[in-house]
């Protein structure tokens, strides 16, 4: 059996340490808490639940470590995300590409050119459809029906009070389940 690198580190929350600038002090966090690392105006920032902090090391120095642990994929120029914390993928309504939502509700837009390594990591063919997909669902999505107020997943039984499914709650409690 092939194990992904860093499985025990993720399970036991003992990944690599990342140093963050906190004024004059330095804060160390575990890599398992990270959602993304990105470059912003020449500075490297770590995206954590609810905050974004500048790192002590530059992205170029961090890259070998990220590649060693696996699961870190580039979704834009100088923008790396931790795919082990990925929760949801959908079409980006504001622009092109996709929108990736993570465990705490933070969302990052993914450019279409960077799609391939993510699909390879997930072992899927598309970020919008989980294969195999039912034909009603497939055709509705091919027609680019975006705001569905009908519970098409339960197309066998009519719904009296349709509820917008797939809506995302910022608190992280509802990721669009069918219940």
């Amino acid at each position, binding site marked *: 059996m092939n194990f992904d690198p860093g499985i025990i580190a993720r399970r036991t929350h003992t990944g690599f340490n990342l140093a963050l600038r906190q004024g004059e002090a330095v804060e160390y966090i575990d890599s398992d808490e990270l959602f993304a690392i990105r470059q912003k105006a020449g500075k490297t920032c770590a995206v954590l639940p609810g905050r974004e902090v500048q790192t002590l090391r530059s992205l170029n120095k961090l890259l070998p470590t990220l590649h060693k642990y696996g699961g870190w994929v580039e979704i834009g120029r100088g923008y790396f995300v931790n795919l082990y914390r990925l929760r949801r993928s959908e079409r980006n309504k504001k622009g092109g590409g996709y929108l990736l939502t993570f465990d705490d509700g933070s969302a990052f837009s993914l450019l279409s050119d960077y799609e391939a390594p993510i699909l390879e990591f*997930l072992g899927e063919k598309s970020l919008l459809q989980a294969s195999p997909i039912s034909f009603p669902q497939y055709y509705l999505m091919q027609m680019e029906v975006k705001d569905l107020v009908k519970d098409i997943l339960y197309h066998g039984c009519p719904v009296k009070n349709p509820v917008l499914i797939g809506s995302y709650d910022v608190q992280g409690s509802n990721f669009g389940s069918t219940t």
Partner: protein
Amino acid sequence: MAKEKIVKPQKSQKTAKARKPVPAVAAPKRPRGRPPKPKPTPALAPETPPAPQPPSDAQGLKLVEALLVRLVSPLKALPVQTAEAVVYVRPKEIAYITTTKDRHILIVDREGREWQRFNVLKKLFERLSPDARFFLAHKSCIVINIFAVKTLRKNPETKLNELTFGDKVKGTAPVSGGNLKELRARLEL
């Protein structure tokens, strides 16, 4: 009075010849006195089980692999379909997987949320089988996460063995009689 002669029956010669005098053999002397007490034998050391042999390299690798699988799921998140997006459910969050009347797959997570996929349960179980936490509880319709099981009980109405998964998960998962023994072993009952 005439004396009656008592005629002794004469032994036939044949019988006389057949009976040969047995030579006198000295009988073994009986030991006199009390029999000697048996000598106390030195106490034997209690039998110690043989030391287990160190596992071979292949066995050791298998053991490590089994422990790793028990500690960490080797599977990646399972994508499920909603109307707008694809949601990724982690294997450790799944409580059980069953089929609906429409022959879709219904995934129930530990929070009681339900998700759907559109493939066949058997193929999905093949995909999940590298992870030791998943067990085919019923041949046709149920795959359960062993680590999410809270109770194993017998339903008095249906007389079937059922598994429950805590307060948040409303549904129960039936267990077929043929798989019950293996399930008990997996649950260490």
